[in-house]
């Protein structure tokens, strides 16, 4: 294949496995970008009155660190596993809408690039500096984001980027709901669905219900900034607190969008390496569903310091505490899964066990936040920073790393080095605790978050230095992982179909799987197809192998996706023609897409 042809085959691909890989590599690059931003933050805070970066740059760094990690790294990393693994786990040839899937990916890349372009495009806006990155925090509280208090293009990049990323997430959400519900292999009842696929389904429902709310919140902000309305401005009776409500109505389900997939991965990894089925499968599934549902009724616990009144505080405190119950149940079921097993401590298993250990800490500090009076001392301090990092780093990222070591052989055909993997785990585990545990104390001792400098009088200088050292240790650990991935390309041990003895369908086929996944769609007779004797044969007696139709690629998802950032250039540059060009591209893309002969 010529180089151009190969490039085109990636640009037009509709294969869920290729899209999964694209998601993985892109999101991993943004994970590194977000990590780099974190290291700058920690370098600045290593000592009091630090001078590594300016106040303005620091504010951009923590804003983009949060935004990048949530929307450009963790969500798309989970999406890469949704894409690659879910169709294999449920015994499908592809997702329900392969071209929509490609569209999701391209929209994500383009939105991410648009938002990060703000690091280098200051001169275009006569800003007198290189970087005009968003700088109002990842939850961008109004009215700091209004034109009056943020006149530059910083917030415009943020809100337009988020709008575009929302389109990507929504499209993926619809796609995976239908895929999981409608494309299961024969015999795979819902209660035989692997837990990771179940959590993908719950996550997808959360995405399609939560993202419209942030979309509206951002639309209102756009109107405030571009058309002079007063949705969040007090000057005409508006209320900046409305933004907080809309943001957190989205934001809390978003937290579960980030953690549930990781819980799903852990629920796959633990049984495999304990050689025991998941303890209490139904309970684990239902508690995942319950967590997703209850996530809708707790948003104001992010706002206890707003002063909502004792009744609202009590109600949201009670609902928040209730969520601790299904979460605790999950942890106990994982422990019971390990109990009595034969635990093989592969790197994937280490990360999964690390998940339990660290997520428990994050959950417990979460309970202290659920009590509004206690939260009044903790919110907006480093204590809450510690909490979210125990949940999102100790939880989500550990879960994702477990998934990477677990499914890497399936995705590439080669095993990652276990020796390097264990170094990776040790460095990240130690670094993580060194970086984030002291933050509990730093917060309780009075250091607010989002400050670019602090006084030595606070007495938290040493703790901050320790935290910085921990952050750099994490960085070293990630470098080890990159080295591991790099050397595995050529020197990795080949994997075979099933290097771990896994129980689910993805391990029945070759690594990496053929384009059409399954020669014959298997018929499933149990929850653990590869561990159960009652499993029906994959190929029924006398079945004739029909010719497998592989769908062709399509360029129109990419073209349609291209229209979105072009459209966004209109408000960004205050030049209307971009809007017409962008809309034309989108319309053209949709029509060509709709009338293109395509079958999957």
């Amino acid at each position, binding site marked *: 294949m010529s180089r151009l042809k190969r490039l085109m085959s990636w640009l037009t691909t509709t294969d869920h496995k290729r899209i999964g890989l694209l998601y993985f590599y892109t999101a991993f690059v943004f994970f590194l970008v977000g990590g780099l931003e974190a290291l700058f933050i920690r370098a600045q805070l290593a000592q009091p009155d630090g001078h590594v970066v300016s106040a303005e740059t620091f504010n951009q760094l923590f804003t983009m660190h949060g935004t990048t990690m949530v929307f450009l790294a963790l969500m798309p990393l989970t999406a890469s596993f949704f894409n690659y693994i879910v169709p294999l786990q449920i015994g499908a040839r592809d997702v329900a809408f392969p071209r929509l899937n490609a569209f999701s990916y391209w929209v994500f890349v383009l939105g991410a690039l648009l938002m990060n372009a703000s690091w280098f495009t200051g001169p275009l806006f006569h800003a007198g500096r290189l970087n005009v990155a968003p700088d109002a925090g990842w939850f961008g509280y109004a009215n700091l984001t209004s034109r009056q208090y943020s006149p530059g293009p910083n917030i415009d990049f943020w809100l337009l980027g988020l709008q575009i990323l929302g389109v990507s997430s929504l499209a993926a959400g619809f796609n995976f709901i239908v895929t999981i519900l409608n494309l299961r292999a024969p015999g795979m009842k819902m209660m035989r669905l692997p837990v990771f696929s179940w959590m993908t389904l719950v996550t997808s429902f959360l995405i399609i219900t939560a993202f419209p709310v942030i979309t509206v919140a951002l639309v209102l902000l756009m109107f405030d900034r571009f058309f002079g309305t007063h949705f969040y401005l007090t000057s005409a009776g508006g209320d900046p607190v409305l933004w907080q409500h809309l943001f957190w109505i989205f934001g809390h389900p978003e937290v579960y969008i980030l953690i549930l997939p990781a819980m799903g991965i852990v629920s796959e990894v633990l049984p495999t390496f304990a050689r025991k089925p998941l303890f209490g499968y139904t309970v684990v599934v239902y508690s995942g569903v319950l967590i997703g549902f209850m996530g809708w*009724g707790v948003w104001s616990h992010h706002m206890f310091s707003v002063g909502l009144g004792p009744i609202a505080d009590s109600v949201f405190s009670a609902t928040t505490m209730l969520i601790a119950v299904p979460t605790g149940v999950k942890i106990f079921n994982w422990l019971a899964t390990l109990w009595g097993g034969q635990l093989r401590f592969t790197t994937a298993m280490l990360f999964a066990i690390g998940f339990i250990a660290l997520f428990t800490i994050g959950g417990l500090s979460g309970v202290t936040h659920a009590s509004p009076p206690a939260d009044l001392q903790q919110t907006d301090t480093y204590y809450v920073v510690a909490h979210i990092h125990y949940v999102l780093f100790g939880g989500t990222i550990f879960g994702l790393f477990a998934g990477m070591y677990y499914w890497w052989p399936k995705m590439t055909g080669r095993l990652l080095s276990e020796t390097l993997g264990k170094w990776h785990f040790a460095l990240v585990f130690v670094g993580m605790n060194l970086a984030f545990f002291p933050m509990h104390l730093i917060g309780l001792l009075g250091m607010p978050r989002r400050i670019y400098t602090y006084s030595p009088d606070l007495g938290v200088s040493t703790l901050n230095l320790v935290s910085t050292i921990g952050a750099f240790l994490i960085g070293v650990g990630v470098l080890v992982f990159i080295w591991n991935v790099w050397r595995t390309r050529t020197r990795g041990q080949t994997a075979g179909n099933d290097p771990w003895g896994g129980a689910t369908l993805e391990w029945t086929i070759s690594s990496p799987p053929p384009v059409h996944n399954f020669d014959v*769609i298997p018929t499933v007779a149990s929850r653990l197809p590869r561990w159960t004797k009652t499993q029906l044969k994959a190929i029924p007696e006398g079945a004739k192998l029909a010719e497998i139709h592989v769908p062709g690629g399509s360029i129109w998802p990419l073209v349609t996706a291209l229209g979105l950032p072009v459209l966004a250039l209109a408000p960004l540059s205050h030049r209307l023609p971009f809007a017409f060009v962008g809309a034309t591209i989108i319309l053209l893309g949709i029509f060509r897409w709709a009338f293109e002969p395509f079958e999957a």
Partner: protein
Amino acid sequence: MQQPSTDEHPVVQHAHPTAGVYLRVATILVILTVIEVGVFYVPAFHSILVPALLLLSAVKFTLVVMFYMHLKMDSRFFTFLFGGPLLLGLGMTMGLMFLFGAFALRR
């Protein structure tokens, strides 16, 4: 190509109502709208204006969804896909109105 099995179902088109049903539903919808506007203009109803209007529009909403969008005849699962988020949205609206003091007794 998929292997035939007991667990896979061919896509069934549920029977849709006839044009006669559609016309009858349309008639009811129009009558309800006329009543709504009527209630709005008759001063005698003003004490019960809000609950009456909410009830009427809920009935119209349900009629369109049940008959024109075929939820009455179609798979229950579609009712869940639509009703779940609808209830979430309603809960969100009620929650926000409570938080912004819309239900507080006016003093």
